[in-house]
């Protein structure tokens, strides 16, 4: 009846997990009780859970990303403390059985459910506003994408308390991920969490590709698109190119595990080398998918806070294109040690090195954006200076490993671990957090407190170097990744320093949580100086999203803007806003739908049932999703018109707020 699921699958005898469960349960119950006490269930359901509004979906994505950041960071914290303890005969507090799940979960969560969710959140919120659109091309699909990502994240967290998670790393390399070596459900949780969220990401890709191609405001030519939209567009193209590869690879692995096939097994003609090539021909573009939007964020921020246009807009667009192209041609550098011929290794090595060219060009672009500017070091700008230094170092170690002759000793070492954290924390994470600080006032109409943000930055900057420079060094001392314990006296002091670093990072995370809590307090108290009255919170916004009120009305633009060049809003501020010629018209908008969460619930049932081999439940899940799609397809009542009176009232209120703000100055 319940497949492989029995009472013994629940790890009630592991103190750490029981403690975590109690903690999660207490917080969960407190949140549910608070929602009930403040009578917010109806509001939550009507305004958020059933929404198809890209802005609200964006916010939900980022909330998910932050929750997953806390989870992934807890894993990182356990790994660093384990390695600080487990020296010279001391086994530490995490035996391999748990430790291996911890590092697998850390990687999977941070990439798929922290970084990807954060990135999709920024896409959702920012892109339609930057291109002057009222929503994305397929609003309902957007809601489905979100629930797919959410289901993946929920599955991975359920594995903590029911059964176990994968213990073979974030990419699930066979043959150790095959049934022969891994009969438990851990790898199955990994497969379905990644597979389901991957479908969500692919749908997001389709949605935003169409949105950017078809829904730009009248007059916006390709070379007038804001840089964030451009770099996101390249990332989306890569999603469309490579996520199908991920889906197929994971599907083949599940055929091995579920139907006894032999794609990647040791025997029966299976080949682990096939898996490595397939997974990395997705996996390498994936890191460029993550970093390109971050480059876009930095470009927007550098221009806004330097009071200048971005230096070399065209160069930036072309460089991103080159990165997109080269990013798909370098995957073999993840396994120079697999025994490929010297010519193959040389080709992929040189391709990898050449990615440093467009990336280096971008660094110089931001540098020359600051040059002869008026640089204001408000919250978001700190992250970019920290990024430029950290990323340059990370790029350098990346080029070092692009040389096969060097990679043959650095491969799989902690030097490698330090390198990719260097670029992912220093690039992706700094970028997304800067983006959150930058667009937060646009989303909610009030600012994040700068002081908390600055402390968060300082802790992340210092904590990063404290945590990862030691890892570079122990890497050079021959320490490989994923070790659970060790007895080399040379490594121990450095791993202690890294452990201190993770405590500093923890303070940084705490500051970020504090910053968000303060923002909620400011909002509840309607704190005056935190309000963004004009919509152009930083005073020097250049792109369309700063021309509309904060928070953005649900229809985004009362009149679709006419684009007159790059940085339209800046041009309008210089030359004066054209008086609107056409009168307001009713605005056509999509209706919210309960089918998004319904599909989410059935997908979860399907995923969970597949993990535990509960076939009847899997069938119910699939039928449920199918039925919801049929109902949606037959539903003709999916849109409505925003009356002119509502739009006009909003417009008048916005005009009043602006003139009041101007009078106050």
């Amino acid at each position: 009846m319940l497949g492989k699921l029995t009472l013994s699958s629940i790890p009630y005898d592991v103190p750490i997990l029981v403690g975590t469960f109690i903690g999660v349960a207490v917080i969960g119950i407190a949140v549910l009780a608070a929602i009930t006490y403040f009578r917010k269930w109806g509001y939550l359901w009507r305004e958020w859970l059933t929404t198809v509004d890209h802005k609200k979906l964006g916010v939900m994505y980022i909330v998910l990303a932050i929750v997953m950041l806390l989870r992934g960071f807890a894993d990182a914290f356990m790994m660093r403390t384990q390695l600080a303890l487990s020296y010279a005969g001391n086994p530490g507090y995490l035996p391999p059985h748990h430790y291996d799940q911890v590092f697998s979960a850390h990687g999977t969560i941070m990439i798929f459910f922290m970084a990807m969710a954060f990135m999709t959140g920024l896409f959702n919120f920012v892109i339609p506003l930057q291109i002057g659109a009222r929503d994305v091309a397929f609003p309902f699909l957007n809601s489905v994408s979100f629930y797919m990502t959410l289901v993946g994240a929920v599955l991975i967290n359920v594995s903590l308390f029911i059964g176990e998670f994968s213990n073979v790393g974030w990419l699930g390399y066979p043959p150790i991920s095959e049934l022969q070596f891994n009969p438990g459900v851990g790898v199955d949780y990994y497969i379905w969490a990644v597979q389901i969220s991957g479908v969500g990401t692919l749908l997001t890709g389709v949605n935003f590709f169409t949105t950017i191609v078809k829904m730009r405001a009248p007059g916006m030519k390709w070379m007038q698109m804001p840089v964030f939209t451009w770099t996101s567009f390249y990332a989306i193209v890569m999603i469309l190119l490579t996520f199908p590869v991920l889906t197929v690879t994971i599907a083949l692995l599940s055929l091995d595990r579920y139907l006894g096939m032999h794609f990647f097994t040791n025997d029966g003609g299976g080949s682990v080398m096939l898996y490595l090539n397939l997974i990395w021909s997705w996996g390498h573009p994936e890191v460029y998918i993550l970093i390109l939007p971050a480059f876009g964020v930095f470009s927007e921020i550098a221009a806004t806070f330097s009071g200048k246009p971005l230096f070399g807009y065209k160069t930036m667009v072309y460089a991103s294109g080159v990165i997109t192209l080269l990013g798909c041609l370098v995957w073999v550098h993840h396994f120079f040690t697999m025994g490929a011929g010297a010519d193959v290794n040389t080709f992929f090595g040189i391709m990898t090195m050449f990615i440093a060219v467009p990336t280096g060009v971008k660094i110089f672009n931001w540098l020359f954006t600051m040059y002869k500017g008026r640089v204001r070091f408000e919250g978001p700008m700190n992250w970019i200076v920290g990024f430029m230094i950290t990323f340059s170092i990370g790029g350098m170690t990346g080029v070092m490993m692009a040389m096969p002759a060097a990679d043959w000793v650095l491969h799989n070492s902690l030097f490698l671990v330090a390198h990719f954290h260097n670029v992912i924390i220093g690039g992706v994470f700094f970028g997304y957090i800067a983006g959150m600080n930058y667009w937060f006032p646009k989303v909610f109409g009030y600012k994040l407190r700068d002081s908390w943000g600055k402390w968060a930055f300082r802790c992340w900057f210092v904590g990063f170097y404290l945590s990862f420079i030691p890892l570079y060094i122990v890497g050079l001392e021959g320490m490989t990744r994923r070790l659970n314990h060790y007895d080399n006296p040379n490594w121990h002091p450095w791993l202690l320093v890294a452990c201190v670093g993770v405590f500093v990072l923890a303070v940084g995370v705490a500051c970020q949580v504090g910053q968000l809590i303060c923002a909620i307090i400011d909002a509840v108290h309607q704190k005056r100086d935190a309000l963004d009255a004009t919509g152009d919170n930083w005073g020097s916004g250049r792109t369309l999203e700063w021309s509309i009120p904060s928070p953005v009305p649900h229809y985004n633009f009362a009149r679709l803007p006419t684009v007159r060049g790059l940085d339209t809003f800046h041009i309008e501020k210089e030359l004066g806003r054209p008086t609107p010629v056409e009168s307001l018209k009713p605005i056509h908008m999509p209706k919210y739908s309960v089918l998004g969460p319904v599909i989410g619930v059935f997908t979860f049932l399907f995923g969970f049932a597949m993990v535990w081999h509960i076939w009847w439940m899997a069938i119910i899940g699939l039928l449920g999703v199918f039925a919801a799609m049929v109902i949606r397809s037959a539903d003709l009542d999916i849109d409505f018109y925003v009356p002119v009176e509502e739009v006009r009232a909003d417009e008048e209120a916005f005009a009043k707020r602006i003139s009041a703000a101007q009078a106050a100055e």
Partner: protein
Amino acid sequence: MKRLWRLFPALPALMLSGCTVDLLQPDGPIGEGNRDMMVLEFAIMMCVVVPTCIATLFFAWKYRASNTKAEYRPNWSHSNAVEVFIWGMPIAIIAVLSGFNYWSTHYYDPYRSLPKDMLVREHAENTKPLTIEVVAIDWKWLFIYPEQGIATINELDVPTKTPLNLHITSDSVMTSFFIPQLGSQIYSMAGMETQLHLLARNPGVLRGEAAQYSGPGFSDMKFKTIALPQEQFQSWVENVRNGSSQFASHEPLNLQTYPKYAKPPVVRESVAPTPSPVIYFGEAQSDLFQHIIAKYNNGMVRSINNGKIMRMDMHAASNGAASSSDTGM
């Protein structure tokens, strides 16, 4: 306390003093090649990274909003000269590095027998290479010396100044064979043979490890690499053959006894599996390595003599094994 703080900047140096940084202090020409490439790249890249970081901080400071004396050009966003510089310089650097990349990838290719000029430099041009067959098992390393007819578990003894031709496979999951101070690592994969060519220059004990995660016993999947001068290596081989060592196994290693040694230790959730002890086999079946590969390929294997695919004759082999086990007892 204050005095201690004064030492703080020197802390990294203090922490490194007396330690071996394996990858920077290698003990063989391959490891030196790896290191030289690494250091060369580091040096060239630092020429860009350091000025970039300084320029970032300098521009951020000089053009800060409060410094109204600095020039402000609110519309300046393009300059052909700057564009040429920011594209040209990285391309030039990467072009140079690509040259080194091409050369070093071919020169140090793990599959290539050690180049003649390297052997001349190591005074090893007239030494006969030693062939060693390496099998990664859960979670230990088996080393077969086919020419000597012996085998060891978790200890690799090699003569110095002798080219080492390593043939590597796995009888379990994929992992990676790595002796940091000798240089280059290579994956071990079941049903396949990978190759690695190394050379140890000086006598000494080096750490060897599995460099690719391979399951709960991974952290203890280590082996000692003992580099001995030629004569001492010969007497070590004799010692292993006549079973006089404390690590000596009482039985030979062949198709019948192999499964017992290849069996993974018991895995429990609460503790790491026990590491495997060192074992010496005075007698090892000469084609055991081929049998281990053939097991995953319906009995087929690539011949080491002529490179052709051939069938391992299971029946004949087991007969041979049986007879050798008689003499071994």
